[in-house]
Every structure is written in structure tokens, then in C-alpha cells.
């Protein structure tokens, strides 16, 4: 049941994760991923039928804030770390067209 990851899958995951691996990196990552998936596949030995998936381990529920404005103008803090700023905006490469 050894997992085989194709180059196409690696490229596809690269698009999803916005990562561009070099040829060498990609080969290594592919091997690691195959190995990890083989290992992860050992979970299939477990019978989990009828088991409710558990995302939160502690029974906390209904945590809310009230609808009250608590923040003022945080423009300078927000923009303070911007790699590229134009006036009071973050500047990014053109998104359409």
C-alpha cells in the first residue's frame, strides 16, 4: 500500500499552498510525503466506525462577544508592518486583468 505521489500532485499542492519547490526540494518533499502517508495509513488498522470525529477536546460552547465597538482607529498599527504601502493602503501586484 505504498503511496506514490506524482509530480502533477506535487505541483497541484504547490498551487494550493503557494509554494514553489526547486527540483531537488520537490524530490525530497515527495519522498517524505510518501513515507509520511504510508505511516499515516496505519490509522486504517483502527476501526473507527461509529466514532464521532473530535475537533474540540474540551466541552466549551457558546462563547460570544457582545456587539459593542471597542476598537478605534488603528490605521497606523495595521499598516506599520506593511512590506509595501501606498498612502493608507497595502500595495499588492494587480489582482485582475
Amino acid at each position, binding site marked *: 500500500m505504498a503511496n506514490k505521489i506524482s509530480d502533477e500532485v506535487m505541483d497541484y499542492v504547490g498551487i494550493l499552498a503557494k509554494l514553489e519547490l526547486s527540483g531537488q526540494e520537490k524530490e525530497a518533499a515527495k519522498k517524505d510525503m510518501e513515507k509520511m502517508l504510508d505511516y499515516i495509513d496505519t490509522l486504517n488498522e483502527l476501526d473507527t466506525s461509529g466514532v464521532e470525529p473530535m475537533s474540540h477536546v474540551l466541552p466549551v460552547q457558546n462563547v460570544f*462577544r457582545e456587539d459593542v465597538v471597542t476598537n478605534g482607529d488603528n*490605521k497606523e498599527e495595521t499598516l506599520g508592518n506593511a512590506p509595501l504601502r501606498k498612502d493608507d493602503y497595502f500595495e499588492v501586484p494587480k489582482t485582475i486583468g
Partner: protein
Amino acid sequence: MKKQYETVIGLEVHVELATKTKIFCGCSTAFGAAPNTHTCPVCTGMPGSLPVLNRQVVEYAMAIGLATNCEITRVCKFDRKNYFYPDNPQNYQISQLYLPIARNGYVEIETGNTVKKIRIHEMHMEEDAGKLIHDEWDDTSLVDYNRSGVPLVEIVSEPDMRSSKEVIAYLEKLRQIIQYLGASDCKLQEGSMRADVNLSVREAGSETFGTRTEMKNLNSFKAIARAIEGERARQIELLEEGRPVIQETRRWDDNKESSYAMRSKEDAQDYRYFPEPDLVPIVISEEWIARVRSRQPELRSEKLKRYRKEFDIPQYDAEILTESKSMADLFEAATALCQKPKKVSNWLMGETMRLMKENGMEPEDLKFSPENLARLVCLTEKGVINSSVAKEVFEKIFHEDINPEVYVEEQGLKTVNDEGALRETLKKVIAENPQAVADYRGGKEKALGALVGQTMKMMKGKANPGMVNQMLREMLQ
């Protein structure tokens, strides 16, 4: 002969909720603030920040779910929808996929004389994205996160609509319900209500659905109608040519009246949803639902019933007035001030609607106050101004919300009730129009009208027409 085709349409409607603060932080949602002023670590995706859910968002969503006959999901959760885009500061949107807050509802729409149920598949809560501004000069885009984190509900219908008429009726119905609840102002042009259209065509009589496309960027009812017609034609043309319709997202350009595919190889459209670990489940009890229900404001059907009982206006008027909550609010407020429901209704049904149409406005866009409308009604009722002057004054109110009492005074528009002045004018009119006078005396009742008209003209419209009529008759006897 060409084949007959049927259009099959489902809608995804996004509505910005009318909360004071964003869905996961205490930043204001006020529209139109200077860029990036309504931001904080949470809604700009700063590392280490965490979301905390706004209770009011859940309650508005529950209210909309209840009003659209949905089942409320008793244990609902948030999920992350992952995709990279600069208006999405975390590069994931907190939304609901697996356990949305409401499911399996419907609304009824009327087109012509038929009533039709449009089923609602599900409704979920999510956060809005920021705004991108395209700097044509520099060929870059600029990001403003003021809108990032504004609460939305997305209402997903079943593919139950068959024409743009039904689509518009469905949207108007949703808007009416949500406005009545006070859950959103639903302004299409400000983006607080947005619709994506899923459309496919099939041969008439076919049971199976065709391949659908999703159309985005529709900013008005007119654009939606045009986009539907355009996409229907495009798909039929493809089918007629024997080419396949491709399942894709398309962006509508209303200026060019055409659409283009948005897909690029960098958009895999694989959102990798998984449960949001930073938020805990929402457990909705029977009591909570009851509480939300009891706080629900009067809905349209209830309002209609009350109007019939409370106000002496025709059923037809009541139906038109209650179509939009802002119109109904205006009616009630003005009536409360002047106690003349029918008169207020006449102004709203007549001149207001005419001017709205002329200016391409929706009831939400009306700017004038009920106080000034009520004053106008009182002025005409007391005979201070006559009806033609009143129309002129109303236009001023409609556009500039002027105080009619002040305006009438300043412009000298009061009706002249002074008998002496009127008698002088009438004498003149009688002297100058011997033929009409003779005709009237000869039994032609109609001729009196011409004389009244002449008098009104000479008095620049300010005479009281009833008084003119009466005095003329006396003087001509």
C-alpha cells in the same frame, strides 16, 4: 425550427448584517470610513490574533432562518475555507460548510398571478473580505481591510427559478423579509446585498439539469436580469453549435453586457475546508429560538392586517406601502403626525413613486423626512395651498427635504382667500372673455371651466379653486 429551452437558476445571496461591530472583533462596520481605519489584529490576520464570535450575528442569522422557514441547526460550527487572495487577510475565510446555521427553508414568490415556492438549501454565517482598489496608473492593486470581517449570511437557494422575473421576485422577497427583520439594509449598490447566479439551460421537458455556470459581480437588479439573459443566450448558442458548456465561474461586465471566465491555473478552487479550531461550537436551545422569535419585529403579513384595522386606506394601498419596510415606516411616521392616512398614502403612492421611478431610486434611497410630508398634508388640508402648488412643493421636499411651512411662506405660495382681491380679478376675467360668458349663460356648463382656468392663471395658481368657482357662478347669475 429551433428547440425550446428552459433556464434553470439557483442563487447564492450574500447579505451584510446590520451589526455595529464585525463578526469576530470589536471594529466598527460603519460604511465609508477612511481606508484601514476600522481594523485591528483580528480582522487583518495578524499572527497570534484569535476570533471571538459576535452574538448578534448568530441572532440575526437565526431570525432570517426562521423568517424563511428554515430548520435551525442545533449544534452548528464554523469551518475554514482556504484560498489565497489579498482581500482575505488570513488567506482563509471563516465560514460554515459542514453544519450551517439554517437549512431546508423556502420563501414564496408571486409572479403574475401565480405563487411559487423557492426552496432554500442552506444559509450560513461568514466573514466578508476587504476591498481591492485597482490603481490603473501604477498597474497595482491597493487593499483596504475596513470591510474585512463584516458579518455576512449566504443564502443558497435550490435551482428552483426559471426566469429573470422569478429571480428578481425572489430577491425582492428576501430583501423585504430581511429589511423587515432589521437584519440588514440590503443595499445592492453599497454591496450589502449581493447575488451570484448559478444558471444552466436544458431542453424544455427534460428532467436532467444541464451544466451550470456561476456568475459573479452583479450589482443591481437590472444587471442581474441582463446577466441572466446574456448567459442563457450564450449557453444556448453553445448547445446549438454542439459545444459543451463548461462548469466555471464567470464575471459579468455590465458595461459590455458580457461575461468572461475567471478561472486561471493558479485558482484550483479546492478550498480545503476543515473545522475552525479557534472557535467553539454554537449550541442553540429551544429557549433561545423562542427568545429570538419573540423579539422578531412585525413582519409584512402582520403589518398588512394591522393597516386594514388601524388605517382607513384601500387594501391595494396597504399592499404597495408595505412592500418595502422603509416605505411603510415613512407612511406610519407621517400618518402619526398628521392623522390623515389616506392623504399620506396618496402622496407616497402617487408623486413619490413617480419621482422614484424618474430618478431610478429604491425606497431605501428616500431622503425626505416624515415630518415634512406631514406638514405638507396639513397645509393642503387647511387649504393654505392648493393642490397644484402642493405638487410643486412636494418635489422640493422629495429632493431637498425642505420644511414646506417655511418654503410656502418665503415663496409666497399661499392660496388667496381674500374675496375683494378675487372679485376684482373675476370682474376683469368676465370683461375680457365675453364669448365664454355668453356660452355659459346660454347653458354651456363647460365654459365655466375656461373662465376658472383664466382666473387661476391670472392669480398665478394661488387662488382657491372652489372659491373661484362659487363666486363666478354668483357673479354670472
